[in-house]
């Protein structure tokens, strides 16, 4: 990939990775659309994806980095490598990749560059417990080559039936070796009803909120 050297920060990739790895069910049913909005202490992102096949989704992603004044526009493909079924559980292994353009959005800045990422995500879930793990590498050419991983554990205080309000308490941990503070912890609450999922949390390291929203149609 041909890359131009306009970007002045090496943290962009990891910020995009946070959003990618937090997505719930990144592949839907065949013919289904999913809209995902995620905001944390530094980025606001939007992803809309369409599921071509029970194993493949394709989407368009936009991410705004408020701290570094950059924007990412690109595409993402997610592949469901394997789904394990049980009467009371489900587990998934996903692989994903994406590519796009990063633009500087700050005053007086107009640089842009190409970027690509690749990663994997796994989860195991019952109606009571939830565990997930994701890993991602980013290649921003000569500007940045980064790595991050993220894990989540969750528990549902009560088990709700179809179309009732589902509530989850979760703990999310990011690991970014490049950051001054590599580990970042975010307790959060997930509310889930029908086609809509909302998550609200508070990052105890940066003392800032997290707000995620997913809608499937």
């Amino acid at each position, binding site marked *: 990939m041909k890359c131009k050297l306009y970007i002045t920060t090496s943290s962009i990739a990891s910020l995009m990775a946070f959003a990618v790895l937090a997505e*719930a*069910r990144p*592949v*839907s*049913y*065949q*013919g*289904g659309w999913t809209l995902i909005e995620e905001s944390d202490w530094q980025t606001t992102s939007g992803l809309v994806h369409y599921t071509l096949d*029970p194993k493949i989704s394709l989407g368009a992603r936009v991410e705004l980095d408020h701290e570094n004044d950059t924007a990412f526009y690109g595409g993402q493909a997610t592949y*469901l490598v394997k*789904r394990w*079924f*049980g*009467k*009371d*559980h*489900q587990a998934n292994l996903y692989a994903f990749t994406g590519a796009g353009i990063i633009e500087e959005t700050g005053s007086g800045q107009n640089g842009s560059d190409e970027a690509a990422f690749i990663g994997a995500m796994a989860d195991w*879930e*019952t*109606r*009571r417990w939830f565990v997930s793990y994701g890993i991602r590498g980013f290649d921003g050419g000569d500007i940045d080559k980064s790595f991050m991983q993220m894990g989540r554990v969750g*528990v*549902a*205080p*009560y*088990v*709700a*039936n*179809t*179309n*009732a309000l*589902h509530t989850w*308490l979760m*703990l999310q941990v990011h690991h970014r070796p490049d950051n001054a503070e590599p580990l970042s912890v975010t*307790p959060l609450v997930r509310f*889930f*009803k*029908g*086609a809509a*999922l909302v998550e609200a949390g*508070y990052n*105890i390291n940066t*003392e800032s909120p997290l707000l995620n929203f997913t809608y*499937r149609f």
Partner: protein
Amino acid sequence: MKYFITFIFAAAFTITAFAEDVTPAMLANRPELTKAVAAGGEPIAVDVLGAVCDFCAMAMKKTMGKHDAVAVAYVDLDTKVLSVVTKPGAELDDATIKKLIKKAGYKVAAINRSPKTGIK
């Protein structure tokens, strides 16, 4: 502030982790299913694997609902049963049901064409 939030969250997490399941009372029979059966549709109860959330239920309901032979479909997460009622006179064979569930991303464990309670 952050210590307070961490403490509250940890306490809530610990307490709820060991709590008993509390399942809200749900309708034994869905009105839309009852109506479809009364209209002459065939009720089919499908045991499905991997139904753990509303996205799972929605995926199966939408995929089944698009089929011409299906009048109504409903997934009960408590019982892990997909209830399907066909349109009057329409046929829906097992192979088609399995294929549709696979398109939704899930798997059939068993298909019962004579559910004891008629519905659910």
